C-alpha cells in the first residue's frame, strides 16, 4: 500500500521534471558561447573600475556617478590635464585656448571634422550647451558664446584662471542635439550614449557592460576592439580574478602586490596622489574646543609622529612622503617655497615635541602627560571603524604621542558618525583624507580646504562643496589665495604660494601623515601602450575620469 503510493509520487515527480525540461528546451534560443576572441582576433580587455553589482545603465556625464566609461571613453573634454606629472594640457576636442590679460575672457579653438557617433558634426554649439545647461552652469560665468562654428568664448565676472582645468578639463562635452531635448539633465539615464570618444557603448547587463571601438574616432580607431567592464562586489574577488588572469586593468589597494605581479602578466604602477592627514579642529572663534586649538600642541603632534613606522605598518610601505605644503613631491616641486621644509619629518622626535610644549608654557604632570593651567593635553581622535589603514594610523599615533607626553584617545566610530562630526565640526582630531587637484598645482587644496569661505562655525553643518573641516581661518592665507587666483603668471603665483605655505606649515590645521598609495595593475603581457613609471602620459587608475579614455585609446593588443 505504502509502496504503491510512493511509486505514484515518484512518477508525478518524474513527469514534472520532464515537463520543466521540455519547456526549457522549447524556450532555448541561440547559444551564446562567445569566447574571448573578438572578430578580428584581438582579445577583449577586461576592466574593473570599482563598479559593484547590479550595474544600471547610466551613461549620463551629468549624473554624479555614471558608469565609468562615460567619463572619457565615450564623452571627452576639450583638453586633458594630466595630474600624474607636470605637463601642459593636451588638446582633445579643443585645439588651443587663450586668456585675456585680466582673466575675464577665455577663448577656445575647437578641433574641426569631429563627428558624434550618430554621424552629426561636432561644433561650438555643443560646447556652449555643455557649459550653460542647468546641471553645468556656474555663477561666475557671464556668458558662453559661439564666435564661429569652431571658436567658443567665455566671459566671466571675475578673473577665473583657477577655474581653467574645471571648465575645459573636467567638463565633458555632450551632443546638444540630444541633450537639449532632455527635460531633467541630472536624472536622465542616457542608456544609448552618443559621444565623440574612442569607444561606443555596446551591451549592459546587471553584471557587466561592454564597449566597442569607435572606428571613426578623430584620433584614429582604437586598436583594442572590445572592452568589458565588470561588476565585482569585493576587493578580495577582484584580487582573485587578477591572479587567475581574468582582469587586465584595475586599481585597488593590495598590501602584497608582489604576489599578484609574480607571474609576469600584471605590472603594478604606484602613483600616490591624495594626502592622508590628521584634521584638527582649529578655530576657537568658530567654536572648536580642546588642547589641539593651541598651535603648539599641533606642532608637538607633528614632531612626535613617526611617519616611517606609520607608512610601514598602516600602509604596507606603499605610501609616499607627505609635504606640509600639500604640494605633491616630485610633480609639484616647482611650487614649493624654498623657505619651508618640503617634507614632513619622517621619524619621531619626542624631545623636540616636548621642547615646543615647554616653550609654550606646558609642564609635565605626574603621569607623564603635559598640562597647562590645570588642563591636560588630552584629545580624542576619531577614525571610521573598519577602515583598517586609518584605524592603524590612529593606534600608532596614540603610542607615538604618548612618548612625547601627549595623551590621545582613539575612538573608532561608524562612517555616519564620522561624517556628522566632520560636517558639524564636533571633533578634536580625526584621520581624514584630502583629495588632490585634477592638475599639477596644489591651488585647489589651498582654496577649498584652507580658506575661510570654505568653512562654517562649529555646530553648523557644512554643505556639500565646502571642505575646510578643521575650521581654519587665517586672513593671510585668504588674501594670498585670492591674489594667486587673480593671476596667470607663474612667478606671481609662486610668491603667493610661499606665503600660504609658510602659514600652513606653521599652523598645521591638517597634520600631514603620508600621501596615499594609488596602485594600478595592468596586463602588460597581452596589451601594450600602458602608462609607465617613465612615461606617465595619463593618470593610470581604471576609474579615473577622462584619463581612462586616454589610456584606452592608446592600448594595443600584444602580438
Amino acid at each position, binding site marked *: 500500500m505504502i509502496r504503491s503510493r510512493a511509486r505514484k509520487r515518484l512518477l508525478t515527480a518524474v513527469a514534472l521534471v520532464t515537463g520543466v525540461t521540455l519547456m*526549457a528546451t522549447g524556450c532555448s534560443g541561440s547559444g*551564446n*558561447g562567445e569566447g574571448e576572441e573578438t572578430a578580428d582576433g584581438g582579445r577583449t580587455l577586461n576592466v574593473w573600475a570599482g563598479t559593484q553589482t547590479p550595474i544600471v545603465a547610466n551613461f549620463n556625464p551629468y549624473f554624479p556617478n555614471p558608469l565609468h566609461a562615460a567619463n572619457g571613453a565615450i564623452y571627452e573634454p576639450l583638453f586633458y590635464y594630466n595630474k600624474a606629472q607636470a605637463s601642459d594640457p593636451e588638446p582633445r576636442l579643443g585645439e588651443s585656448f587663450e586668456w585675456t590679460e585680466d582673466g575675464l575672457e577665455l577663448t577656445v579653438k575647437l578641433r574641426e571634422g569631429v563627428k558624434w557617433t550618430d554621424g552629426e558634426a561636432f561644433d561650438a554649439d555643443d560646447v556652449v550647451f555643455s557649459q550653460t545647461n542647468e546641471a553645468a552652469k556656474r555663477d561666475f560665468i557671464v556668458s558662453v558664446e559661439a564666435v564661429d562654428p569652431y571658436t567658443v568664448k567665455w566671459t566671466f565676472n571675475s578673473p577665473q584662471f583657477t577655474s581653467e582645468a574645471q571648465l575645459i578639463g573636467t567638463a565633458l562635452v555632450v551632443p546638444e542635439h540630444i541633450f537639449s531635448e532632455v527635460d531633467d539633465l541630472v536624472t536622465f539615464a542616457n542608456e544609448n550614449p552618443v559621444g565623440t570618444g574612442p569607444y561606443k557603448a555596446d551591451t549592459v547587463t546587471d553584471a557587466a557592460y561592454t564597449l566597442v571601438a569607435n572606428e571613426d574616432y578623430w584620433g584614429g580607431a582604437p586598436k583594442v576592439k572590445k572592452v568589458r567592464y565588470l561588476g565585482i562586489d569585493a576587493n578580495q574577488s577582484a584580487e582573485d580574478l587578477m591572479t587567475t588572469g581574468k582582469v587586465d586593468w584595475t586599481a585597488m589597494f593590495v598590501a602584497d602586490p608582489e604576489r599578484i605581479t609574480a607571474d609576469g602578466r600584471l605590472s603594478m604602477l604606484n602613483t600616490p596622489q591624495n594626502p592622508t592627514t590628521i584634521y584638527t579642529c582649529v578655530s576657537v572663534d568658530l567654536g572648536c574646543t580642546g588642547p589641539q586649538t593651541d598651535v603648539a600642541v599641533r606642532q608637538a603632534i607633528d614632531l612626535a609622529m613617526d611617519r616611517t613606522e606609520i607608512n610601514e605598518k598602516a600602509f604596507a610601505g606603499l605610501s609616499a612622503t607627505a609635504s606640509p605644503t600639500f604640494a605633491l613631491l616630485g610633480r609639484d616641486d616647482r611650487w614649493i617655497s624654498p623657505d619651508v621644509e618640503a617634507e614632513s619629518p619622517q621619524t619621531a622626535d619626542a624631545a623636540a615635541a616636548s621642547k615646543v610644549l615647554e616653550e609654550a608654557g606646558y609642564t609635565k604632570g605626574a603621569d607623564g602627560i603635559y598640562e597647562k593651567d590645570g588642563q591636560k593635553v588630552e584629545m580624542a581622535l576619531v577614525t571610521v571603524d573598519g577602515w583598517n589603514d586609518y584605524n592603524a594610523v590612529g593606534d600608532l599615533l596614540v603610542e607615538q604621542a604618548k612618548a612625547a607626553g601627549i595623551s590621545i584617545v582613539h575612538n573608532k566610530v561608524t562612517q555616519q558618525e564620522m*561624517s556628522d562630526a566632520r560636517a558639524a565640526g564636533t571633533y578634536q582630531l580625526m584621520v581624514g583624507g584630502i*583629495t588632490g587637484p*585634477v592638475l599639477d598645482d596644489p591651488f585647489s587644496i589651498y582654496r577649498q580646504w584652507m580658506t575661510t569661505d570654505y568653512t562654517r562655525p562649529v555646530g553648523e553643518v557644512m554643505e556639500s562643496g565646502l571642505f575646510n573641516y578643521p575650521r581654519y581661518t587665517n586672513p593671510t592665507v585668504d588674501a594670498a589665495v585670492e591674489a594667486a587666483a587673480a593671476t596667470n603668471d607663474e612667478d606671481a603665483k609662486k610668491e603667493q604660494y610661499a606665503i600660504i605655505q609658510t602659514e600652513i606649515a606653521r599652523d598645521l590645521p591638517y597634520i600631514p601623515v603620508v600621501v596615499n598609495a594609488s596602485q594600478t595593475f595592468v596586463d602588460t603581457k597581452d596589451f601594450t601602450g600602458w602608462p609607465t613609471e617613465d612615461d606617465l602620459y595619463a593618470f593610470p587608475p581604471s576609474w579615473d575620469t577622462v584619463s581612462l579614455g586616454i589610456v584606452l585609446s592608446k592600448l594595443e593588443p600584444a602580438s
Partner: protein
Amino acid sequence: MRYYVRRITFYVITLWAAVSLNFLIPKLMPGDPRQIFIDKLMRRGGELTPQMQNSIDLLFGADDDASLWDQYVAYWGRLFQGDLGISITYYPQPVTELIGQALPWTVGLVGLATIISFVLGVGLGAWAGWKRGTWVDSIIPASTLLQAVPYFWLALILVSVFSVTTGWFPRIGSYDIFGFDNGPEWSWAFVGSVIYHGFLPALTIVLSSVGGWLLGMRNMMVSTLSEDYVTTAEAKGLRRMRVALTYATRNAALPSFAGFGVALGFVVAGSVVMEQVFSYPGLGKLLFNAVQASDFALMQGTFLVITLAVLAANFLMDIIYGFIDPRARANV
C-alpha cells in the same frame, strides 16, 4: 473555522504593523544620504568637481517638508500601486525592478541550498538517531564543527582552494559574465553556466547549515525512539524500516518542519555574506548596500519584501499545522 479567522486577523494586524514600522524606521534613522553619497564618491578617489556637486544637489533635491502623517498616507498609496520608489544608489532604477532582478537569484540559490541542507540534515539526523550509540554518532561533532566555523571563513577557504588555486569553479557572478555579454538568455549553455556558478556558493551554505538540522533531528529522533508507541510497534514485530520511517522519523520531524517554514521565509533575505563573497546578485547584497548608502527607498523595499516573505511562510506553516496537528486548532 474560528481558528483560521483568528489566525488571519492576527496576520493582517501584524502585516499592518510591519509595514508601518518599515515606513517609520528609516525616517528615524540618523544619517544624511547626500553626505554619505559624497563620502562614497570621495573615498573612491578623484576630485569632486563643482559640476558633480551641482548634480548631487539637484539629484537629492530639497528636504521633504510634508508632515509625517501625509508621508505615511502617501506611502500606503504608493504601496497599493506597487510603487516602491527609485533607488538613489542605483539611479535611475526603480526599486521594484532591482528587487525583481535580485529575487530570482536569491530564491533559486538560497532556496535550493536551504532545501538541500534541510533534506540532507533531517535525513542524516534521522539515521544518526536511529543508529545512536554506534560509530555514526561521530558525524555529529564533524557537522557541528562546520556550523561553528564562521561562514565567511569557510567560504573563503573553499574559494581559495576550488576557484583560485585549482580553478575548478568560477569566482564571481551567477553566470559566466565573460561569455554572456547580453545577459541572461534561454539556452542550455546558459542554464549550465548558472548551475556551474551556483554550485560553490550553494555548497558553502549547505555545509554551514546542515549541522543544525542534523543535530536537532537526531535529538528528536532519540527522544521519539523512547516513546511507548515505538516500543509497541517494535513489539508487534513490524519491519525495522517501517518503524524507523513511519513511526519514528515522521513524528520526530514535526519540529524540524516548523523550523523549515521559518527558514524558507528567511530565504528571501538572502545570505548577505555569501552574496558579498561570491559577488552573487541577490537581495541580501542589495539590502546591505542600501543600508550602507542610506538609500531609504531601496531599504524600505527590500525590508518589505523580506517581511512579507517571512509572514507568508509563517502563515502557511500555521495553516498546515492546523491541518496536521489537531491540537493546534484546539488550543486557540
